[in-house]
């Protein structure tokens, strides 16, 4: 797949700015001063060793984990200084795809996708039906999944439905937590292509946590590497390949990466 570098890069407005972020669990700091910016239209891949703070960073960004110090600005607004209403308004401008999908198990696929729209927008029931189906068709699902329960879906379908739900409110930023984990390589490739297509169509900014080298090569404009609570590298895939940090070296030049190196060169 051809790499697309049409969006983002330089010039776009900053949608997320993180400064000196410190956060952790149970009194143990996991993130020790993290700084980065994400501009409009970029597709960012976050990599890092297990336990290196990827989840803590993502959860801090979307407000699920209180941070200890530092600032996070989303759409040029410091999220600590927002009132409840403003905060909710900002939360509606991002969509989150959780690793396990996090579909509401008691609702059908249709109800899952309709839920954010039903709660936040004033849509007629006909429009609600049509938009829900349009979203599901955008993520490559068909009408016959509408009335299924999440427990009846395969892993790949769960991810797609969860993506449709994350896209329900036409978010500007999409957070993806390991979007291709648990998918076979073909489905994972399809999912990457889908994210890229949607990113282009809807003008999304995408922040994905991933371990999948293929996703990093094909889908990401820029990669942020996290180790020991700090950012050790930030840049396109070429920067990662040239980096001297031992973890990055073994990650991008290890046995599993060898098969890709021909493509990258």
């Amino acid at each position, binding site marked *: 797949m051809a790499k697309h570098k049409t969006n983002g890069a330089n010039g776009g407005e900053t949608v997320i700015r993180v400064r000196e972020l410190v956060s952790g669990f149970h009194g143990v700091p996991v993130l020790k001063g993290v700084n980065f910016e994400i501009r409009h239209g970029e597709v960012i891949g976050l990599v890092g060793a297990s336990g290196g703070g990827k989840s803590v960073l993502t959860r801090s960004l979307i407000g699920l984990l209180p941070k200890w110090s530092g600032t996070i600005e989303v759409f040029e607004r410091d999220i600590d200084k927002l009132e409840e209403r403003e905060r909710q308004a900002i939360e509606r401008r991002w969509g989150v795809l959780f690793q396990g999908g996090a579909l509401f*198990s*008691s609702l059908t696929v249709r109800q899952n996708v309709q839920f954010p*729209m039903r709660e936040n*927008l*004033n*849509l*007629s029931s006909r*429009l609600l*039906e*049509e*938009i829900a*189906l*349009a*979203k599901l*068709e*955008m993520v490559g699902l068909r*009408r016959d999944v509408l009335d299924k329960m999440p*427990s009846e879906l395969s892993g790949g379908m769960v991810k797609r439905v969860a993506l449709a739900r994350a*896209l329900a*409110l*036409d978010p500007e930023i999409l957070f993806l937590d390991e979007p291709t984990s648990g998918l076979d390589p073909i489905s994972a490739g399809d999912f990457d292509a889908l994210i890229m297509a949607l990113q*282009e*169509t*809807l*003008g999304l900014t995408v922040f994905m946590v991933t371990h999948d080298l293929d996703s990093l090569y094909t889908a990401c404009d820029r990669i942020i590497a996290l180790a020991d609570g700090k950012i050790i590298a930030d840049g396109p895939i070429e920067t990662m390949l040239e980096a001297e940090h031992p973890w990055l070296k073994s990650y991008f030049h290890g046995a599993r990466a060898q098969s890709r190196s021909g493509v990258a060169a």
Partner: protein
Amino acid sequence: MAAEALLHVRVEGRRLVLDAAGGWVAARASEIEALVEGVFRKQPAVDAVEINLAHLERLDTVGAWLIERLRRGAASVKLPAEFVGADPRFKVLLDEVAISNKEPPHPHPKKGALYELLEHVGIGVVEAGKDFSSVMQFTGEVVVASGRVLLAPMRLRFTSIVHHLDRVGLRAVPIIVLINFLIGAILAQQGIFHFRRFGAETFVVDMVGILVLREVGVLIVSIMLAGRSGSAYTAELGSMKMREEMDALRVMGFDPVEVLILPRLIALVVALPLLTIIGSLAALVGGGLVAWVYGGFPPEVFIDRLREAVTVDTVKVGMIKAPFMAAVIGLISCVEGLRVEGSAESLGEHTTNSVVKSIFLVIVLDGFFAVFFAAIGI
């Protein structure tokens, strides 16, 4: 809030020009839908439709879909429609929604209320039949596993039995004592209160003694264990089933029934009669205490009356039921545990089923025992 959404409709010669302007976004969906709705209500006297998007400022999926509806509206009255002046960004989104909602929705077959009622009853009957056969099948497996263990007693997992005895037996003692004590006290209080009217207070001792030893002691203990230990068995076995632990045991050459279920059943069958004894004693103490404080019988009188009222048969009748109750609770909770499938909802559902079915069957079984003992005259 986005800029206002507008739709100017005008006729230019034989062309209908629809000029969409402003912000066509989800927040304004109801207004836009109203605008779109009216356009093709009556056949316009034109030959072609032009949808002008040059003045569109913002567009999201909902807006794009409503524009697509306009286009389909034109198609439905057999007019060719074309987009004019669309921003390339919007064009991609328009193309994307153009391919959606192609098939007409499936008609929902409407069934009558009576039909649905009968359908539910039928499903219920079939399920009950399946329940029965799976309990029978499982009982068979347990018997076979017990047989194997009897032939080779070294295979019995003694440590596991002791562990489960501690959990379902010893640790249940405080709550069983408390509940039975209260039940005994309430029985005595009610008895004294009502018997006093016809001066038959002393018969309270007979009533409490017989009721507790024959029925209430064992029933309360069984119900408590069904809720406390039966549910725990179902949840444990169910989560093991979910995480393929059962399959792991099987491929290592162990029989899950022998390793996991037999120790649990044995522990329950041993613990329940023991707890029944403790529980019944607690109920008698509770009854005696109330009789003393509220009814004015000193403990010596209570014990004397009890000796006259209660025979060894009464105790036997109560105790003989205990292991059967334990077996029913154990079998049901293990069967339900083994029927758990992949999801967490299934685990919750089967745990609930396990408790409901165990308590129901415990009471049914008690009824059968009552009929049986009446027939043999005890």
